[in-house]
């Protein structure tokens, strides 16, 4: 079966996968900034990180006034390679439809920064990074991190790059959570904000799905209590199952039915066995297997946990509007009709809070059957909205 849009190489990699994962975590093919014990990072969990590394990509040119920087925040399984070929998979950037020359987030006009999140596995400190205290990968010795910790790390990166105020901060899903956290934590550093297909909290159902994924990883005997890198194994099966379950939540019933229906995979009739008889089974298995090539299982645990812990209102006395009180930031919130992971109602809760706090907010609900993942796909209405929103904000900010 050919899967639309799938250009991933299926060639067996010759490099040792354990070595490759550790190399990507410590020595990525992106610029990095390192912070030492003189600037420890205090975490929400009450612990601290004495050494921190941040990997990032930039696109376009920072103008003389340093006023045209846009921070793109990536989602759970994304990374800093928003607009360039991925170093592991060879695929084009995960948001190359949105970010690039002449694209809605126009790199001819704006200076775009995207960094790997804290807890990630492509060069920013995460569970696969080497713990300076032991010389071994952190594994589960890394403290549990939060969305706010991620944002604090991004703020440090911007300090390092000499960018005081962001023209905009944009992202979908977990990226949208970071956008909201940015607007709440650093209102004066955010001129405009684009949270897409996101919410101000993770719902009980979303936590439930994440827990299924984590249990799948941890039930794999190769996970070895999180020490699989040290023991030179890999919980591939567990992580693949986690990805398969999660992938269903990124789509919609209509889209699955439209793409796969009940079609059989390379056969005329069922085999009366447990092989992948149906195309949808084959598709999910493929999604699972390709995911483990590029993602660290422990990172998956840490990042899903960070999303579960996210509840912005709880940090502001239970009233979400308090998180945005007095905010001068211009917001544009977008949701998708068929998204059941971050449904419109969750996005609208953010809009309501912004209205209640008197903030400037626009909101669109894009009509599509492609589910949560629509934010990554070719959705012209979304592109038009973002292009228009950024252009008018650029005009207000005096960006040519």
């Amino acid at each position, binding site marked *: 079966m050919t899967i639309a849009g799938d250009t991933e190489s299926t060639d067996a990699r010759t490099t040792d996968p354990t070595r490759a994962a550790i190399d990507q975590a410590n020595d990525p093919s992106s610029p990095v900034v390192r912070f030492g014990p003189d600037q420890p990072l205090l975490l929400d969990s009450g612990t601290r990180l004495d050494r921190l590394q941040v990997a990032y990509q930039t696109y376009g040119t920072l103008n003389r006034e340093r006023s045209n920087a846009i921070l793109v925040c990536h989602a759970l399984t994304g990374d800093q390679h928003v607009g360039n070929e991925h170093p592991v998979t060879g695929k084009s950037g995960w948001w190359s439809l949105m970010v690039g020359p002449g694209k809605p987030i126009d790199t001819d006009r704006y200076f775009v920064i995207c960094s790997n999140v804290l807890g990630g596995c492509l060069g920013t400190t995460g569970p696969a990074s080497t713990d300076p205290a032991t010389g071994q990968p952190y594994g589960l010795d890394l403290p549990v991190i939060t969305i706010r910790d991620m944002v604090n790390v991004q703020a440090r990166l911007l300090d390092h790059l000499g960018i005081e105020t962001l023209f905009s901060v944009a992202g979908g899903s977990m990226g949208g959570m970071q956008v909201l956290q940015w607007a709440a934590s650093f209102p004066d550093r955010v001129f405009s904000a684009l949270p897409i297909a996101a919410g101000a909290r993770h719902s009980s159902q979303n936590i439930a799905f994440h827990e299924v994924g984590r249990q799948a990883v941890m039930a794999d005997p190769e996970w070895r209590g999180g020490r699989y890198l040290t023991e030179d194994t890999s919980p591939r099966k567990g992580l693949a199952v986690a990805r398969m379950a999660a992938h269903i939540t990124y789509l919609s019933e209509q889209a699955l039915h439209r793409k796969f229906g009940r079609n059989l995979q390379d056969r005329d009739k069922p085999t009366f066995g447990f092989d992948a008889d149906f195309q949808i089974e084959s598709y999910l298995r493929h999604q699972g297997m390709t995911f483990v090539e590029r993602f660290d299982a422990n990172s998956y645990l840490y990042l899903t946990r960070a999303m579960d812990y996210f509840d912005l209102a709880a940090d502001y006395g239970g009233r979400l509007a308090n998180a945005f009180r007095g905010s001068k930031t*211009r917001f*544009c*919130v977008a949701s998708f009709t068929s998204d059941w992971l971050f449904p419109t109602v969750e996005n*609208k809760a953010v*809009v*309501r809070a912004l*209205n*209640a706090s*008197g903030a*400037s*907010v*626009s*909101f*669109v*609900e*894009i*009509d599509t059957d492609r589910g949560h993942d629509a934010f990554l796909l070719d959705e012209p*209405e979304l592109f*038009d*909205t973002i*292009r*228009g*929103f950024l*252009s*008018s*904000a650029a*005009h*207000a900010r005096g960006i040519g």
Partner: protein
Amino acid sequence: MNAPQRGIPSSVARVDHLVIAELVTPGVRVLDVGCGDGQLLGLLEATRGVDGRGIEISQKGVNECVARGLSVIQGDADTDLVDYPDDAFDYVILSQTLQATHRPRDVLEQMLRIGGKAIVSFPNFGHWRMRGMLLVTGRMPVTRSLPHAWYDTPNIHFCTIRDFVALCDEIDARIEKGVALNGSGQRIALTAPWWFWNLFGQQAVFLLSR
């Protein structure tokens, strides 16, 4: 999509929009409910320097507004006004939308809760042409400004000027000012009696307060 210049109306402003703009004090906070493509909001920002927000039900309208640099959310006057806190705005405007709402009375009450003042413009179903068509043809009136057949019109709650005034009475809304425009868009003299307004006003604009 080309973003029009912020605040500059894309075409010559409509008379009813100009009437509304005159009723709005400069520099205030305004919510335009059912703001369409943002023409009125753009006019108010450009000529009155207001801090404007909008609600619009159609995605196309919202996109046009956002591209103009207006802060507009996709939403429904009937269901979404409850989300706004009391006194969030100085003026809440409902321009040519009242007759398309499911519960006009609730919408009016919500407007007066959210804003200190409300501005409502609507087509007057008591206009002599409407009365004449109903009387002579015995069928629901269809005119150039209200071109829909009864079975596919978005306008489900037509009223006359007198009906509207009665509703304001019922919900204890004070009428601060009223303007009626005749078929050629000219104002009907303030001194004219209600029955005259109701017969010759093709549309009306009212400024209300609590």
